[in-house]
């Protein structure tokens, strides 16, 4: 498939092993950040597709009122698995582990991350976690059915395989922490000469902020999960109300991680947007520092809003309005970013290539997700909408419409760089459009259904919801069709695609200064940085410029 770097005579990282092995072992034992990134890509994309298929089955069940294809208990395990896979195996590691690994060192002008072997270890820890999830499905007791939030006391009482599945989440958290430590150290220690903090590309900034949240938040869920396991295994009293424990305390600890985790999901995506928009507007980013600082602000304030998931669980009124207020405040830095992006495009010479189209669809979907977030962030409305489809629609719009869309944007933006091949752009445009239509058909009706009172996590519903549920199911087919189409033409491009040039989009960050696919060591000599990250005047002097 991929044989040569674009630069004749130069060997790409696909051709050079970092160890004494060749073939598959040269991949499995590699310490090269690019190869590790690609292994993550394969693993994470596979799990994503599994999650999509589970989603399709859920939508199938919901196509008509009453039992359609499965029992209620099957539905319970499916939404749990779907949630666990999408959250812990796809969206949290997604952008940092794949694109962060591949591009963070390159964008900094480094040859690798700070701890290459630790990097490989995190990959294997991820794999072990994923295997544990799978094993838990087949052990006696049956697959976990608690929902991805594992709320106490049900998660202590149910006889399904909770312990194994949440232990997998614990392991995955470990992988996330190690990646975070690696990235923070890399950014501090391995910037090329001249790469000052404010010359770092914004993807680096956001990955850096994300890495901090990974470090700060993940241990909290680690200990919480461990305690649930210990409680299940030994009957130790910690959260179980029968032994005097406090189930609400579990919810607090769970969301102290899991809310910052949504910023682990979205921040890298925002970084990718800040890369793509300048490149296709040929204009330096508007308000570089504001975007960089707003990443840090989101990382910080995002840590303090967790209890807005618990407005109806039992909390004092004072804490409720404080958390509601903080929730509104955290919307500000996100708004700052949206306005900066739009302002960047203003008077730019916009070239609406495929990655840019994905970003446009992101801005639309993410704005809906963000604005409906304010609806559930306000106390009075949340009491009405809590645990309804409105919430399901909201989080799919932010996570899937936000980060998921950007996952595809990043894939299309960097695919030529990572693989040295170009995909069929016409197919790509068709798939964005299908994705967008399918997405809104699938999830927009859920806002309305939720508003009308359809609760989440039910395999059945009242007859009056039938028509919107049907629309939603049809939307899921279009959306899934678009996704499988993307995967299909990308794989096809790997084998049959035209060779990509080193700089197909006219980008100026460091990855576009080197060959596609990059050589083993990224840079033959460490570059000295003299430009701002999005200074398009350098295009003319660049080796692979216009």
């Amino acid at each position, binding site marked *: 498939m991929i044989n040569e770097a674009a630069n004749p005579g130069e*060997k790409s990282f696909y*051709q*050079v092993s970092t*160890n004494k092995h060749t073939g598959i072992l040269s991949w499995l034992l590699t310490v090269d950040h690019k190869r590790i990134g690609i292994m993550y890509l394969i693993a994470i994309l596979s799990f994503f597709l599994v999650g999509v298929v589970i989603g399709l089955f859920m939508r199938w069940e919901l196509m008509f009122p009453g039992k359609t294809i499965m029992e209620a208990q099957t539905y319970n395990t499916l939404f749990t698995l779907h949630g666990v896979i999408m959250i812990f195996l796809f969206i949290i590691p997604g952008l940092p582990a794949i694109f962060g690994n591949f591009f963070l060192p390159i964008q900094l002008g480094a040859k690798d991350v700070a701890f290459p072997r630790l990097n490989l270890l995190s990959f294997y820890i991820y794999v072990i976690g994923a295997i544990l999830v799978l094993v838990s499905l087949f052990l006696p007791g049956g697959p976990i059915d608690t929902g991805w939030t594992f709320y106490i006391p049900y998660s202590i009482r149910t006889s399904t395989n909770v312990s194994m599945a949440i232990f997998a989440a614990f392991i995955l958290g470990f992988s996330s922490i190690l990646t975070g430590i690696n990235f923070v150290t890399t950014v501090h220690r391995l910037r090329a000469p001249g790469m000052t903090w404010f010359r770092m590309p914004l993807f680096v900034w956001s990955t850096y902020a994300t890495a901090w949240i990974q470090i*700060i938040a993940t*241990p909290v869920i680690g200990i919480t999960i461990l*305690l649930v396991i210990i409680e299940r295994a*030994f009957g*130790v009293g*910690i959260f179980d109300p029968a032994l005097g424990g406090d189930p609400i305390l579990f919810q607090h600890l769970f969301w102290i991680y899991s809310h910052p985790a949504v910023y682990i999901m979205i921040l890298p995506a925002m970084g990718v947007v800040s890369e793509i928009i300048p490149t296709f507007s040929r204009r330096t980013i508007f308000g570089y520092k504001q975007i960089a600082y707003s990443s840090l602000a989101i990382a910080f304030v995002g840590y303090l809003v967790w209890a807005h998931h618990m407005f109806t669980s039992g909390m004092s009124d004072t804490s409720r309005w404080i958390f509601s207020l903080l929730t509104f405040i955290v919307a500000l830095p996100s708004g700052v970013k949206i306005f900066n992006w739009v302002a960047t495009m203003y008077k730019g010479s916009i070239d609406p290539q495929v990655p840019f189209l994905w970003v446009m669809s992101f801005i639309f979907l993410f704005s809906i997700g963000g604005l409906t977030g304010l609806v559930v962030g306000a106390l009075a409305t949340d009491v009405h909408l809590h645990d309804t489809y409105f919430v399901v629609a909201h989080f799919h719009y932010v996570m899937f419409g936000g980060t998921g869309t950007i996952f595809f944007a990043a894939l299309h933006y960097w695919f030529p760089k990572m693989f040295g091949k170009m995909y069929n752009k016409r197919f790509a445009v068709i798939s964005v459009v299908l994705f967008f239509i399918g997405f809104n058909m699938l999830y927009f009706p859920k806002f309305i259904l939720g508003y009308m009172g359809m609760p989440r996590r039910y395999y059945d519903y009242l007859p009056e919801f039938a028509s919107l549920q049907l629309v939603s199911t049809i939307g899921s087919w279009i959306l899934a069709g678009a996704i499988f189409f993307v995967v299909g033409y990308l794989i096809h491009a790997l084998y049959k695609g035209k060779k990509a040039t080193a700089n197909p989009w006219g980008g100026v960050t460091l990855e576009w200064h080197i060959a596609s696919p990059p050589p083993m060591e990224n840079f033959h000599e460490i570059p000295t940085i003299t430009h701002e990250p999005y200074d398009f005047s350098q295009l003319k002097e660049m080796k692979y410029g216009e």
Partner: protein
Amino acid sequence: MASNIEATISIEQQAHRDDVGARMGMWLFLFTEILLFGGMFLIYAVYRYQYPDQFHLAGMELNTGIGTLNTIILLTSSLTMALSIAAIQKKNKALSIIMLSSTLLFALLFMVNKFFEWSAKISHGIFPGSKELLEKQNGEILFFGLYYVMTGLHAFHIIIGIVILTFMLVFLIRNKITSDNYVKLENSGLYWHLVDLIWIFLFPLFYLIQ
């Protein structure tokens, strides 16, 4: 693809050493450890606030003598750990080995003590899920639950520490750790001090404030 591989470069061979980076990574890791225990200290605080009297009652049942002894042991082990690093910095390999070995010895002593302490409790029928314990009040059940989990997790960290320090001892003997390349030993030391530090908080919370 595979047939194309000609050049083999070992990143490890080429990588420049970055002691500052290594230390930084270690500090970040220790930070996550603090947060891990922080979660439990939080739970402790909440329940202590909820059941002050019953926590008081349960705390009286712990053996302050053994707790104090273990505190002294751990503090001393931290000292020997620091001395071991200082010794290798001063190129005194023999002293460094002696100090590191005594750290290991103290760690084992701590575990022996812990073993006797726990078995005494268990033989009195106080362990998670036991009949005696379940007959007690909720606050006491929680206290002992936390006692076992927190000191247990701490002991688990001691065991990991013993494994790490054993490796360091081997490295030291085989000259993998030398007076100009001792960041591994330093990082293990940092870990060891953290484990010690956590104990410094566990000790008063369980054995002293009553």
